[in-house]
């Protein structure tokens, strides 16, 4: 190796690299630290939930709250089995209901929001801005404030305590309309729609073939938002539903939790049930985030 020439060049090159490197390391570790703290903050309750659901009822107060017991593995499956068996398997029914309310509700809600947003962005008609502003003001009205009026209206038409009482209001997503409009305006070029029209495509077909595909990243976002919103929606089912076969899992767990005084065994089911009830949300996020992030990046480089 040529040893005489390189030292200066070598040191220079390292020193010149060292400056930004050190900054990088500093800011990086700061960022990592902050993210780490937040991760711990957000994950600890879930960790607690996971650990707690592997304990038997008599172990809650007598074992370490954040670590497993020797027979955790067996106890966990035992707990899950008992949870799904309790009261003729009502918990499984609640999970199914939640999946139905959230899945179908979010799917249709997203479709309607996409259609509405697309129309508002791509068609010029009188009153367009008025409609948009009215929808937008809907974002500002909290869903809880609408629950009681909805109950009184649904009472008049005999729809309370039915599947529809929770499903119908879930189809509406003013925020989805807003996001769709913005995204349609930015990502669906008028020229493409023009070209489709010249090729003889009808408006509906253009929307489904062209619009939906180009808007898909926004639609995934809206779907996820709406899914989580309906899954976590508690107040509307609380006011509307009396038949426990119609309950979503949130309301069911709340009802159990409020009856712990009468039946202390429910404590176990509430904890294990709460853990099981977040699993579908995690699945939805993990499986959809791929579309989501790839969609957001697509087109940004072109």
């Amino acid at each position, binding site marked *: 190796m040529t040893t005489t020439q390189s030292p200066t060049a070598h040191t220079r090159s390292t020193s010149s690299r060292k400056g930004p490197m050190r900054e990088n390391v500093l800011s990086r570790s700061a960022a990592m630290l902050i993210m780490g703290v937040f991760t711990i903050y957000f994950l600890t309750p879930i960790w607690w939930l996971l650990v707690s659901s592997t304990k038997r009822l008599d172990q809650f107060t007598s074992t370490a709250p954040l670590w497993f017991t020797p027979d955790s593995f067996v106890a966990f499956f035992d707990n899950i089995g008992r949870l799904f068996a309790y009261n003729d398997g009502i918990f499984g029914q609640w999970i199914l209901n939640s999946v139905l309310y959230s899945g179908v509700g979010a799917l249709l809600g997203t479709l309607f929001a996409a259609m509405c947003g697309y129309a508002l962005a791509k068609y010029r008609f009188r009153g367009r801005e008025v409609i948009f502003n009215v929808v937008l003001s809907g974002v500002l009205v909290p869903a809880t404030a609408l629950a009681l*009026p909805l109950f009184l209206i649904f009472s008049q038409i005999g729809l309370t305590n039915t599947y529809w009482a929770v499903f119908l209001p879930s189809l509406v997503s003013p925020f989805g309309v807003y996001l769709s409009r913005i995204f349609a305006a930015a990502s669906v070029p008028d020229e493409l729609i023009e070209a489709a029209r010249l090729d003889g495509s009808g408006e509906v077909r253009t929307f489904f073939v062209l619009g939906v595909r180009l808007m898909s990243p926004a639609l995934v976002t809206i779907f996820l938002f709406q899914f989580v919103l309906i899954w976590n929606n508690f107040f509307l089912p609380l006011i509307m539903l009396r038949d426990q076969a119609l309950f979503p899992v949130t309301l069911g767990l709340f009802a159990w939790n409020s009856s712990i005084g009468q039946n202390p065994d429910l404590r176990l089911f509430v904890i294990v049930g709460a853990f099981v009830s977040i699993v579908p949300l995690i699945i939805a996020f993990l499986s959809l985030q791929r579309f989501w992030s790839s969609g957001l990046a697509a087109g940004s480089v072109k």
Partner: protein
Amino acid sequence: MKSTFKRTATAAALVSALALAGCTATSTEEPAASGECAPSDGPVTLTFTSWVPGMDQVVALWNEQNPDIQVEFQTGPSGNSGTYQNFFNEIAAGNAADLGQIEYDALPNFRVQDGLENIAACAGVAEASDDFVEWTWSQVTFGEADAVYAIPQDSGPIAMYYRADLFEQAGIAVPTTWEEYRVAAEQIAAQGAFITNFPKTDVNWFAGMVWQNDGQWFANDGENWDVQLTSDKSVEVADYWQAMIDDGLVSALPSFSDEWNASFNTGAQWTWISAVWGAGTIRSGAPDTAGNWRVAPMPQWEAGGEAAGNWGGSSTAVLKGSDHPYEAAQFALWLNSDPEALALANELGGLYPASKAGATLPVFTADQEFYGGQKIYEVFAQASEWVIPNFIWGPTMTQTYTDVSDGFGTALSGGGTLLDALTAGQQSTIDALKAQSIPVKE
């Protein structure tokens, strides 16, 4: 067309909301609707809302035996967690369930807002008064003549759970009066433990203490409500517990929390003055202490006294607007007096029946393994007889509880006294009654 419908619906909603808010005490009008309770023709279907675990199976038992009166079971969270509000919404919308579970401390609220049917004229109801523990019956009649607004379901007579083994080891006598209880508290504190906790959120527990002291929080002379949170008897109880707090003899652990359960499990707290349903709470919260707990009567204000308070308990009420009050009353009577129904409700829902015959069910005469083989329910049956009748709940208990609980929290952290909390609760309760146009004595 659509918009007209919407407008009328909104208007209807508004009107009913106003009507609800504008309702005033109606305890003086329409003394009785006697003779109006006739059976319906043909088979009927009733709806019944309750949050007691396993109540659906009790209802299924009735449905098997009564093909002509079928009961559809509905459920929800416990009363104050949402079901009461749901009842009021339904009554406003005119589609309330025929029957609803209502705790004794919430009944006056429903009575004042005219949410209950008087079922005194229904067959078998008036005759049933002797079948139920005296104080529970006075809770459902409000002392009105020819009136019964609900059938008592369960009750929560109070006694004292204590760690017999720890008391014995330390050579401390089991207290029978509040004075002795205070002495024991000091001795236990010297051992580095607490005699009990002062529960800031369980204001109805505190009411049970006042109840035992023959105190009242409310009175109603037929026209006006009189708020008496700061009556002499109530103040006496507040002062007693305030002294315990001041001297650090009671813990501030919130009841029913994990830490609180753990404190029983590890022997950091030695007693719990609680209702009959607390037996299950200790059993599941402090499993390591099996065999060490016993139950004794509540400490008394006077040596040799025979007084007890009550904490909790509920009734089965026929809600306003029911089309079938006769059938609803029959179901309510069966639900709360049939031995099979009571046994099932106790097994699945932990209810301690308000019916006198209920205390003789096999479950209540058996030895309790967790309590070292003691027949603890005999103590509670006695306590049930000792509960002073005629305790009156106010019509805005949820608000009173919240306000007093806030004050209790401040007192526990040293920012005031329990008496301050009651004084503040007294004023805010009067304000709340006025805000609902309920006549109240200043």
